[in-house]
């Protein structure tokens, strides 16, 4: 089980801010593929990975990052702080 959190328009497309996903995905990319196959709202949210960023356990990573031992994965658009 892994906590998956969403922010901004990713959260709006998925429809929830946070959920627990039962997965054996080895990498972030595997998880994306798994969710995309599951439901249209995921397919919509993950349709353009160039416009997405991902953090595992609150650290920015690439989509090929491993999920071994990870508790929390976050998907969101490019940040617009400041």
């Amino acid at each position, binding site marked *: 089980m892994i906590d998956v*959190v969403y*922010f*901004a*328009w990713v*959260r709006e497309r998925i429809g929830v801010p946070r959920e627990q996903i039962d997965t054996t995905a080895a990498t972030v990319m595997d998880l994306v593929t798994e969710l995309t196959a599951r439901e249209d709202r995921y397919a919509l949210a993950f349709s353009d990975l160039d416009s997405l960023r991902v*953090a595992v356990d*609150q650290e*920015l990573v690439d989509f090929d990052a491993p999920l071994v031992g990870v508790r929390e994965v*976050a998907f*969101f*658009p*490019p*940040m*617009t*702080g*400041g």
Partner: protein
Amino acid sequence: MRVSVQSQDFDLATALHGFGTAKNTGATVTFTGLVRDDTGQLDYMEIEHYPGMCENAILKIAQDAEQRWGLTDCLVIHRYGKLNVGAQIMMVATAGRHRVDAFDAATFLMDYLKSRAPFWKKEVSLGGASSEWVSAKDSDETALKRW
């Protein structure tokens, strides 16, 4: 060094009380970001944030800046939630020996906060006519490359 991620407003003077008072401080720079209304149509801005990751990301950026420019002090405050036109969004303050240190560190902090701190801005127009997530600018990503 102090980092705060908060919903409530801040006061520049209060935030700077006792800031950069080391004898080897020759220059302090502050930056304040405000909700700007270019079109006269903006009602308010909503800032979403990733609790926990925000504080950690900003702390790391601030520590980098302190070390790189030998800062004598450093402060970052960033708000989240609903912010009206003209409201303060965030501030950074840097204190260093020379003006170039303080300026460069403040610019660096801003460039990093723009693109690496997990905040997302949504603009809501008057009467709720539209509500749109602010897009990240290529120029902001480019700005990071100089550091």
